[in-house]
């Protein structure tokens, strides 16, 4: 346990910089894209500094306003938090580069240009605010502050979802908003019970279950249910596919790769404190297993590519909860496996959604059957999509493989072999639906006419960079795992 005595200022910058960027993009309407790129790069830089400092100096703390916890709010950057901030930074930078090209490519001089420009103007400040709120969520050490950050994340995600303006996306955004508000309010009720039981709002105190009294159990149940609603774990997943599939291309990637991780991470924080018997963790594991099977089945029967990728997110969220029973043993590798799933899914899913968005923009539709031949037109995006799929399946050199390997070994060492069995079964199911999509995208079928290329190069290459990262994560595993050691 290493704690720097004073407040370290590098902890707060990944939150402050995107907040500043939000205001600047909101005020500077002429070239918001330029300002947003600048702030995205700076946020990425400060996040890297944070990751490096945590590796170097250990856990960092920041006492906001100079008041120490029971009274004030503290930020705490330990290994898992730093890893999530880094994940958001890398994926976020890729998505930012993609969005620049995306909004540029949509301007064709037609009658819709004014509307597309307005969408772009709204997109940048919302995206930067969402980024800041996610970083705030990962670093926060105070449960009421987490509630406010959750609301920031939810409202900005809803705003981004509704940006496309199509009726299906509006209805999906409305449903998303109602579910999110229900989740936040349930969380807030849990916060109230925690405050009643402990007399403090500090996360580190609250998440340590010493004596499971009724208020503490009720609080934990309420908080977990609220967060699972927001993460779209199996029985609560109904709102996710329409919201993720009908949004603009960069927004789909943001929602699937990053936003669901925010509430999942908090769920992990509340469960990892220790003191809970392993039996309790079986509930999320069972829900997760159901999600893996149901999500894969639904993904396979979709006709639209973006719907397929969205249902695959439902299935992959299942993996994020399957290892929960393994958290009871603090020496085990359960949390390593969870975080590896999170980061490799983030890169792979962002790449797949970005590539699917590129197909959509180029072809004007995303019907899987009619996408055959798109490979000739968009070779880089097609390759990125296939690589992302490989990582989801968990084939050897990829990050998804390391995650499944860690999960299976941890499960066997703790005599919970059925978890390993589910992971392997899930891989098979994933392979089936990924193969269905990839075989269409990569099919040697020739396009009848060769339409002109409308998509910018940055859209293709940013997706490929993220997909390659998802593969490389399998080779550079020691680095993230070393970061996770810092607690």
């Amino acid at each position, binding site marked *: 346990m290493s704690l720097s005595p004073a*407040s370290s*200022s590098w902890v*707060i910058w990944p939150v*402050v910089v995107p*907040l*500043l960027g*939000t*205001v600047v993009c*909101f*005020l500077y309407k002429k070239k918001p894209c330029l300002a947003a790129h600048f702030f995205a790069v700076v946020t990425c830089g400060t996040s890297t500094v944070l990751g490096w400092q945590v590796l170097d100096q250990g856990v960092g703390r*920041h*006492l*906001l*306003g*100079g*008041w120490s916890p*029971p*009274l*004030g*709010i503290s930020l705490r950057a330990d290994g898992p938090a730093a890893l999530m901030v880094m994940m958001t930074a890398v994926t976020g930078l890729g998505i930012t580069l993609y969005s620049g090209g995306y909004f540029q490519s949509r301007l064709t001089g037609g*009658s*819709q240009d004014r*509307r597309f420009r*307005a*969408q772009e103007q*709204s997109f940048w*400040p*919302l995206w930067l*605010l969402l980024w*800041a*709120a996610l970083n*705030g969520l990962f670093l926060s050490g105070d449960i*009421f*502050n987490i509630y*406010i*950050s959750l*609301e*920031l994340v939810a*409202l*900005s995600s*809803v*705003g981004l979802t*509704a*940006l496309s*303006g199509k009726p299906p996306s509006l*209805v999906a955004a409305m*449903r998303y908003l*109602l579910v999110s508000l229900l989740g936040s309010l349930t969380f807030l009720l849990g916060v109230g*019970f925690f*405050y*009643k*039981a*402990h*007399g*403090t709002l500090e996360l580190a105190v609250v998440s340590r279950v010493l004596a499971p*009294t*009724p*208020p503490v159990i*009720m609080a934990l149940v309420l908080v977990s249910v609220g967060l699972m609603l927001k993460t779209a774990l199996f029985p609560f997943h109904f709102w996710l596919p329409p919201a993720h599939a009908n949004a603009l291309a960069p927004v789909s990637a943001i929602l699937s790769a990053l936003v669901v991780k925010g509430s999942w991470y908090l769920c992990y924080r509340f469960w990892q404190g220790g003191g809970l018997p392993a039996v309790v963790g079986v509930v999320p594991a069972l829900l997760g297993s159901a999600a893996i099977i149901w999500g894969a089945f639904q993904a396979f029967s979709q006709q639209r590519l973006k719907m397929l990728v969205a249902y695959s997110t439902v299935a992959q969220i299942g993996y994020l909860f399957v290892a929960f029973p393994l958290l009871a043993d603090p020496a085990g590798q359960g949390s390593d496996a969870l975080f590896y799933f999170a980061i490799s899914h983030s890169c792979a899913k962002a790449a797949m959604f970005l590539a699917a968005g590129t197909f959509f923009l180029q072809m004007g539709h995303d019907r899987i059957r009619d996408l055959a031949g798109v490979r000739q037109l968009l070779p880089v995006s097609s390759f990125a999509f296939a690589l992302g799929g490989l990582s989801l399946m968990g084939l050897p050199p990829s990050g998804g493989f390391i995650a499944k390997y860690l999960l299976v070994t941890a499960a066997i060492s703790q005599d919970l072999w059925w978890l390993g069995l589910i992971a392997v079964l899930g891989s098979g199911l994933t392979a089936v639906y990924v193969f269905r999509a990839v075989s269409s995208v990569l099919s040697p079928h020739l396009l009848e006419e060769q339409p002109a290329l409308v998509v910018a190069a940055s859209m293709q290459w940013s997706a490929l960079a993220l997909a390659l990262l998802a593969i490389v994560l399998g080779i550079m595993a020691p680095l993230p795992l070393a970061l996770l050691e810092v607690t």
Partner: protein
Amino acid sequence: MVNPGRKRLSPAHRPWPLLVLLLLFFVALVWVYLVPGSAPGGLARQVDASLAASGVRSRVTAVLLNFRGYDTLLECFILLLGVMVVWSQRSAVTTEPRQPAAGAILASLERLLLPLMILVAGYLLWAGSSQAGGAFQAGAILGGAGVLLLLDSSPFLGILPRKALVWGITLAPLFFLAVGVAALTLGRPFLTYRFQEASLVIVALEVAAAFSIGLCLATLFAGRLPGYQVGPSQGKPPAKRGE
């Protein structure tokens, strides 16, 4: 909305099993609520002990603007976020029935109430340092004054230059960030103000917050981007299809 049942999220109409489940949930909540907590009194003592160093005498204001100032900063961003989302969803058709002019009652009400509301807002802001009141209430009253003006079809949000409105809305978040970053550059934690400056900084923050909150609330009510308003009065086609 007019057609009840035209759009529904869940097809179930009278799900009795659900209501029974909710009843059980309520019983569980009540049972847990009646178990006495182990820490009665919460943080009251800690707040009292540090009140002298906070720079204000009102305990709620001290919590909001000093001990948990970061929460309040994020809250200002939530209001800003609300405005951003509402503006991004601007309506395709602004056939909002604009009444030609308010009735005599509204007009006289307005003449009477507006100065009074601004006075009350100022008082609340001033009173906030020692008793009930503060930035939020003052901001709310200011927002109410704005809503009253809008009800009278006063185009004050439209007349106001767009730049001024946008800067006014971002005043509080920007000022908060500036105070925080200033503390960081002086080598202190984010949003720290020492005792000597505390009262001054808090008063300045409160004025900025009240102003921005009022403007945000009035803008949320107006619900459209200034300068965008397409009314019959401006002679443009009333509907922008496909927005």
